[in-house]
């Protein structure tokens, strides 16, 4: 868009701009509105950071100890605020969600951009938008009433994969309860599916049509075009989509807390309960008192969450800058 400063009235009676026009009130007002977002982020960072460092500043806990794997605020020898199980759990559940949903999402995005006839698009796109709108508590409720019992009933006991001739190839203990890492990842994967799909879809649509037609003119099939031309061309967009999905998954609190079992130990197996930063905060925040070290530890965990999300924004910018540069 051309950069225009306030244009003077050509047909006005004054040759010089009036005071009001010189102030350019509209520009300032809308600038304040846009800049308010900067103020909001600054406030958010300030408050959460201030509260998050109280654990170290006020309660005298040293920064290194929070990276231990022992979380026991009621330990006899003094409270232990190791938050590693929560960080590891967040990573585990998020990674699981991405592994499940990324292939599906990219496939769906390709479907919408390359394969679907317009009538199919007109059905699937609104469906995706509705998906986005379903509140997280509803996903959690579905998880706890449908998914968790299903996992416990169907895959309780042992999970064994046997092939003919070779025999037992793989066996692991099954779901003791349905509350598990896998349940959390499944619920999260449905929740991030629309995000990854829509951003990937935009990325595929942005690829110039000439690349497709050029490839097809050489005699390739559509799948070959997609695989060798389209996906590499849209790669930064797809990566951005995955990072955005990861952020959404890592930040989800309520739905995840209802189905993962919340056992404050390092993630051991996909059939076993895990814990995450968000779920522990939800569990303990209401039972702890403002100002006590236990709650300060929870604020530190919120700060970690905030840092994760800001890092992912920086990551997305770096990915896209590389695309601009190349």
């Amino acid at each position: 868009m051309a950069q225009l400063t306030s244009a003077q009235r050509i047909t006005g009676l004054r040759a010089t701009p009036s005071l009001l026009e010189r102030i350019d009130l509209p520009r300032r007002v809308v600038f304040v509105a846009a800049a308010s977002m900067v103020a909001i982020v600054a406030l958010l960072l300030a408050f959460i950071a201030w509260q998050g460092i109280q654990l170290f500043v006020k309660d005298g806990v040293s920064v290194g100890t929070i990276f231990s794997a022992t979380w026991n605020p009621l330990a006899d020898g003094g409270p232990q605020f190791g938050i590693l199980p929560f960080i590891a759990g967040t990573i585990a559940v998020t990674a699981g969600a991405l592994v499940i949903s990324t292939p599906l999402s990219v496939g769906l995005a390709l479907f919408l951009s390359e394969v679907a006839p317009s009538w199919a698009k007109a059905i699937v796109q609104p469906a995706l938008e509705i998906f986005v709108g379903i509140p997280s508590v509803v996903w959690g409720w579905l998880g706890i009433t449908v998914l968790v019992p299903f996992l416990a009933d169907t895959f309780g006991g042992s999970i064994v994969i046997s092939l003919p001739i070779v025999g037992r190839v793989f066996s692991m203990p099954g779901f003791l309860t349905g509350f598990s890492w896998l349940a959390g990842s499944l619920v999260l994967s449905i929740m991030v599916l629309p995000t990854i799909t829509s951003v990937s879809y935009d990325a595929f649509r942005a690829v110039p049509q000439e690349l497709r037609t050029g490839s097809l003119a050489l005699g390739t099939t559509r799948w070959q075009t997609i695989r060798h031309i389209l996906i590499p061309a849209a790669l930064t967009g797809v990566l951005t989509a995955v990072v955005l999905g990861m952020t959404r998954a890592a930040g989800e609190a309520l739905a995840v807390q209802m189905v993962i079992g919340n056992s404050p130990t390092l993630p051991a197996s996909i059939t076993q309960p895990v814990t995450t930063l968000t779920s522990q905060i939800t569990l303990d925040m209401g039972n702890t008192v403002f100002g006590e070290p236990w709650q300060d530890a929870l604020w530190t965990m919120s700060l970690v969450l905030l840092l994760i999300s800001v890092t992912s924004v920086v990551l997305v910018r770096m990915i896209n800058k590389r695309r601009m540069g190349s």
Partner: protein
Amino acid sequence: MLLNGTRRFGALAVAAALVVTACSSGASPSPTTLPPTSTPAAGTPSVVTSASATASAAPSVTCVTGSITAVGSTALQPLIQDAATAYQGHCSGATITVSGGGSGTGLSQVAQGSVQIGASDVLAASKLPSANASKLVDHVVARQGWIVVTNKGVTGVTNLTTAQNVAIWTGKTTNWKDVGGPDLPIVLIFRPQSSGTRATFKALVLGGATEATGGQTLTEDSNGAVTTAVTKTNGSVSVIGFSYYNDPNNKPLLNGLQLDGVDATIANVGGGTYKLAADGNLYTNGEATGLTKAFLDFMKGPEVQGTIIPKDSYGPIAQ
């Protein structure tokens, strides 16, 4: 075609209006036993006499107009909620808003002055720094009892002794067959470590022993979530409040256990033979005044202690 649609719409509208009227007239019953009194001026307490059909004496409710908020323990929330509804039924000028948020939230907010009543399962002194805790005044309005429950699939187990509880909850005993049940692994369902319920159980039954962690344990954040988890998980055991055990939705799906051979009943809590019980503490910042005082007195009064508390499965305070 148009006429049919209009007629149909008109009929639906009339029907809807009828349904709405029928439902809304049933929703807010006015206490018919109260004789009308003069409208009280704002803030002036007026005594309303109610001739209750069951009580022999004539209990009186002090009505103060105004609005207060009670926040805190989710274990006490059902009781406070029902008492608030009853009080507001007697006194139309009073508004009592009841929120949950946990014992910690209740203590924090009443200490900061944001709410008038903070409900807590544990004593303020155990959580707040002493400077703040000393400002708070404790009003005990009920005794709460908790019961150890298992999933229905754990057949044959009707009682657990203290020693058995310790062995199970510290992870030494891992299969139900070791305590007379079927061959099922024991799944421990905890409340969060910060929960008052868990702290009380640990102190009164486990004697402070270190609880188990790891693959056979789950943590659920509240009574309701725990109850759902127990009903759906084979071999699970947990501790829930009496009101949740006696709830008609839940009771058929749970197996309630005796503790050291004593039934988990309100009578036994009152009699002192059932030891998994504690006071329900309602804290105010300084002495209670105005509507807060009137409501707390109402909660210690016969209607709440005699009718609402047994209905909600709490124990009355010693009179």
